[in-house]
């Protein structure tokens, strides 16, 4: 994909229109040495990191509670992006043009429908396997992931879907030796919404009966069940919340890049998982921190090294973290019990 090279400085930071099939920062030529360029990449990386962080929460929560990697989570995010795109198109047909209202409706519809998918995936593919052998849920998750990918491809077509820009504009933050640092309203919206969701989510986990039940199940499922917690329902809720957050990430990516296809969940899934591992799998602040770091690293790598190998950078980080610090930055050591 040859992109980034032909951009004018004014559009840098607004990746719309580029063949950004995978999540990725826009790098490219230009005054690489300037401070402004660095700040611009910082802003781009932060936006990207917010999106990864939201997906990573789904991985980390599911891993925390039932100890499995939900491979289909990337696909759930992809479905969120498709539902967002379709809702935008439907709203456009109905003549809803007031942007804040449209955004609200799209967010709610994506969260609702994607949460339904998350719930169904758990119910169909994981719950019957709770006492099966070790590899069974993993294989089932891979099967689910392949299924959902092809399901969307067959129903919506394999071609890349492009959406007209919804939120436009922004402002110039600072000018530095001919390079203007641009912050779009969309980037501000993404970062603010992510922060708000994270804050709300921390309250849910820390201070509500649901959060208590979740933490109890995480520690000891049998004991939680004995104390009257409905374990099945708690696990379902975990999947629903994870899917809803992934849906928000899907909405953001649809707005931010404007192009999606059925395959975006694959790489985004690997990266978000890397974020979860980097932050310490099972830890919620860790997932957010890991997401931000991955977003920043990817943006900087694309800006200063090579765009082609930006996916390699994330993978290298995953392997390095696993070698040197398998518990991640904020994680607890994993004690294996008989």
């Amino acid at each position, binding site marked *: 994909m040859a992109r980034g090279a032909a951009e004018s400085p004014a559009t840098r930071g607004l990746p719309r229109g580029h063949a950004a099939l995978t999540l990725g920062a826009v790098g490219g030529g230009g005054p690489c040495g300037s401070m402004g360029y660095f700040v611009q990449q910082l802003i781009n990386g932060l936006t990207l990191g917010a999106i990864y962080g939201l997906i990573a929460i789904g991985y980390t929560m599911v891993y925390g509670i039932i100890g499995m*990697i939900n491979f289909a989570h990337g696909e759930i995010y992809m479905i969120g992006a498709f539902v967002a795109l379709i809702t935008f198109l439907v709203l456009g047909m109905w003549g809803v043009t007031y942007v804040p209202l449209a955004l609200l409706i799209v967010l709610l519809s994506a969260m609702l429908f994607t949460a*339904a998918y998350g719930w169904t995936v758990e119910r169909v593919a994981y719950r019957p396997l709770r006492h099966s052998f070790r590899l069974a849920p993993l294989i*089932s998750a*891979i099967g689910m992931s392949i299924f959902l990918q*092809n399901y969307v491809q067959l129903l919506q*077509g394999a071609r890349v879907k492009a959406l007209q820009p919804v939120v436009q504009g922004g402002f110039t933050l600072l000018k530095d030796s001919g390079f203007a640092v641009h912050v779009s309203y969309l980037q501000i919206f993404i970062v603010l919404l992510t922060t708000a969701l994270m804050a709300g989510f921390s309250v849910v986990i820390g201070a509500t009966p649901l959060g208590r039940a979740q933490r109890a199940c995480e520690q000891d499922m049998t004991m939680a069940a004995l104390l009257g917690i409905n374990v099945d329902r708690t696990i379902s809720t975990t999947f629903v919340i994870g899917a809803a957050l992934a849906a928000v990430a899907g909405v953001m990516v649809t707005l931010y890049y404007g192009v999606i296809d059925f395959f975006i969940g694959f790489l985004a899934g690997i990266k978000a998982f890397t974020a979860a591992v980097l932050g310490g799998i099972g830890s919620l602040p860790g997932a957010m921190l890991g997401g931000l770091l991955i977003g920043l690293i990817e943006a900087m790598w694309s800006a200063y090294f090579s765009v082609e190998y930006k996916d390699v950078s994330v993978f290298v980080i*995953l392997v390095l973290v696993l070698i040197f610090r398998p518990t991640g930055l904020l994680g607890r050591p994993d004690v*294996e019990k008989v």
Partner: protein
Amino acid sequence: MALAALPPQPRLDWTHLIKDAALAALVALVLAIPLVGVQTVEVNAALTVGTRWDWVAIGVAAVFVGRLLLMVARSLSAGRSAAARRPARIILDQRRATLLAGLGIVLAVALPVLPLSSRYIVDLATTVMIYVMLGWGLNVVVGLAGLLDLGYVAFYAVGAYSFALFAQWFHLGFWECLPLAGLLAASFGIALGFPVLRLRGDYLAIVTLGFGEIVRIVLLNWVPVTNGPAGIGNVPRPTFFGMPFVARAPPGVTTFDGFFHLSFNPGHRVIFLYYVILALALVTNFFTLRLRRLPIGRAWEALREDEIACRALGINPTTVKLSAFAIGAMLGGFAGSFFATRQGFISPESFSFTESAIILAIVVLGGMGSQLGVVLAAIVLVTLPELGRQLGDLPLVGPFLSLIGTLRMLLFGAAMVGIMVWRPQGIITRREPSLRLVDERRRAA
């Protein structure tokens, strides 16, 4: 939902059943509305939407009926004893398995000379054998050692590209490169497995998934070496003890047909290739079966069943896992090398995640650890889409077959989930350890 709480008597509680099916249909409706009901259509380079409510109605009705039938079947069987409810599996005892395997080998060897066979069939059989070989290779990793490798195609790619590049740079032939490709793939396996195998098994799955993708990205972008998306052509064909399969040989070289005083026929090469992969696959199979009887094979299976117990008994899990991983990678490298020589052209396109998924599906559907199951699954999975392509014009079955061809990957994914839920031992079971002291399969879960 109260699946387990149904009363044991076989009387059907219709209100409950219909309520349950209606609930499932409601969920299906919610799922179907955005993605099935609304379709994105491109009109004049702009996206708009069309609707397909008829599809939604059909889907929801299908879920309702399916769920109802499932629940009826479950509540009918709830009264019966646990043993009777256990789904019937094909468990082959040693004698019957040997008989079936022998029959299969005889059939496979005789295939090119059978009256019905054509060049097309031999070619298709070669493809099937490649997948059988890949399936057997992955079976060592997944079936025996219980490690989930989601990037197996990366080793396949390493094998293919190392052969193509050695041939290009050093003018080596297929037979010289085959062991080199295997060794190279095995060292990739060790390099990748070493950091990761010390950790929980789940990490290996995602790292291999990433590795598969990275290998593809590198092959695409490292243009000076791999020639990027254009791929490498003119990969040398294998020779029969130095005799090439060509119409006219360069001076000083005898062709295969010239040596045996046959008239030149390009079909001979196709048949030769088939025998080469058949031999490779059979060697792989023999090798794996022998390994299972060695201490290392026992250790793989023991590790699959209970890692903590193995550690307590003094088995080093990392080395044991690494050996399985490396051997699996080596077998994948052999298959990749053969793939390169058979196609004569390779490009990164042939090594996508879909390939890994197909190979994994072959192993899972065949029954992890079962050599015969892999063969059956490979035959079914490779020939199904081919049947759809060839027989798509037939009345009645034709459209059905081509529909299966189109939905192939969707069905693979669904089948993997279904197999795990209903019969995790696979269609043909051989997951029981080769050696067992006391029968306590229930505890092994």
